[in-house]
């Protein structure tokens, strides 16, 4: 029991998730193709349209592909976070979530384990993406590849917690498609993933504010700075607080006496 039990359960959950990911090769490929299309096609085409001034953490003029890379790393994690919650809605409908929920461990811990498993998968994807980007000529300072790891853990956890939160309130798979449209796309386009904040300010003050307070923007900035060996305190704090809030609401959402089951009208 106790700590060993917790440890074994968490390794079991992570192991299962990684194994499933490796088994589902199409999922791995599509998770990689998405950011690569953005990088090879969109960024290459967009390069001429967008002039970038020198802004931290960059110390020289950079190509648009270089700018967009941390945003795409964030995108991988955003999709992954939503996808693992999609799989939770699926699991719940199919019942394997029930097997998890009847095991004798606290629910918050089971959800946290699910989250850690999802983050592990997303980090795996990000590093494969970085490797391909490196061959394409997008190189960060070598130490950046280490510094970015904790940033990816936090960003992945925050986005995963958001996914968990959504999954706890979605009753059926069909509703999820809507959430993908209403969450993923606005979050991605209204962020610093594709264009810097100051550029947005030029076109719309309002959009600029929305993008600034978008937790995904802060996660992307955290990744961007870490990749260049710098620590962005504000982005870190913002992402961390967002993680705590999302996780808390998700745990409440999965609480049998408060969350989704009660929303179904049960008493």
């Amino acid at each position, binding site marked *: 029991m106790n700590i060993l039990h917790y440890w074994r359960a968490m390794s*079991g959950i992570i192991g299962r998730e990684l194994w499933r990911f490796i088994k589902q090769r199409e999922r791995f490929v599509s998770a990689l193709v998405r950011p690569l299309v953005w990088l090879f096609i969109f960024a290459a085409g967009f390069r001429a349209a967008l002039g970038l001034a020198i802004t931290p953490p960059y110390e020289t003029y950079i190509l648009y592909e270089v700018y967009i890379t941390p945003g795409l790393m964030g995108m991988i994690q955003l999709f992954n976070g939503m996808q693992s919650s999609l799989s939770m809605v699926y699991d719940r409908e199919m019942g394997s979530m029930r097997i998890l929920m009847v095991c004798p461990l606290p629910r918050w811990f089971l959800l946290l384990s699910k989250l850690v498993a999802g983050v592990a998968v997303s980090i795996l994807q990000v590093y494969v993406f970085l490797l391909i980007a490196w061959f394409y000529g997008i190189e960060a300072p070598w130490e950046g590849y280490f510094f970015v790891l904790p940033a990816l853990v936090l960003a992945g956890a925050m986005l995963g917690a958001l996914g968990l939160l959504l999954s706890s309130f979605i009753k059926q798979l069909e509703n999820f498609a809507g959430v993908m449209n209403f969450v993923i796309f606005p979050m991605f386009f209204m962020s610093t993933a594709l264009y810097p904040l100051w550029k947005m300010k030029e076109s719309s003050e309002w959009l600029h504010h929305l993008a600034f307070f978008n937790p995904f923007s802060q996660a992307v900035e955290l990744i961007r700075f870490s990749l260049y060996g710098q620590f962005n305190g504000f982005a870190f704090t913002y992402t961390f607080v967002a993680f705590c809030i999302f996780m808390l609401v998700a745990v409440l959402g999965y609480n049998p*006496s408060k969350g989704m089951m009660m929303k179904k009208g049960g008493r």
Partner: protein
Amino acid sequence: MNDKKIQDIASLEIAGLSFSYGGKKALDNVTFSVNSAECAILLGPNGAGKSTLFSLITRLYDSHIGKIELCGFDVKQQTRQALSKLGVVFQQTTLDLDLTVMQNLRYHAALHGMNRKQANERIQEELERLSMYDRRMETVRQLNGGHKRRVEIARALLHQPSLLLLDEPTVGLDVPSRKSIVEHVHRLVDDHGLSVLWATHLIDEIAADDQLIILHQGQIKLKGSVNNVLQATGTESINDAFKKLTQGAKG
């Protein structure tokens, strides 16, 4: 496991349990218990409240009215102790189709805190009992419905629970598979002192010495041994008794 202690306490004790969805009452003041080494058949037409009851026992839902105890542990207050005594086979298959039998079972063992050695021993024991050990390296997708069910029963027993919940486990299976599962579960009760709560609407799954709990429209209509039920209803077969008690039931 302390056998003596378990014999003193009912494996499952439900008292005054009510639950409703919105304004519709799904369970109404349900009270019954399942004793140690007893096979209780929860018989009810579709929509009687069987699945709701199971969701409450497994704490997927929470009820504000009534009490559920597993081996003396309140599911609300002592959730973890209570759940550790419980093995469940849900109505839908809950196995990972792309993983092997072994991987599925190891995952469950990990969730229950078993180490590799314990897990392997228990898996071998349970699978051999169901003649499934040779197929442990096959992915679940390759198995037929009856064999999937067997794996699920083995999984539910890995952590040696005191009470096994089965929610219509034989739905959609062919006759030989159903028969083999019914026999296996009854053997577990007789030989290993396991308690079972088996939800079904298939009357031919009942053995002569089972306890019957007849649930209809969220209420317990009758409970007792097969003979008691026949006497109380003045009928000759469980089928007639069931019809009499659930007259007007839909589905």
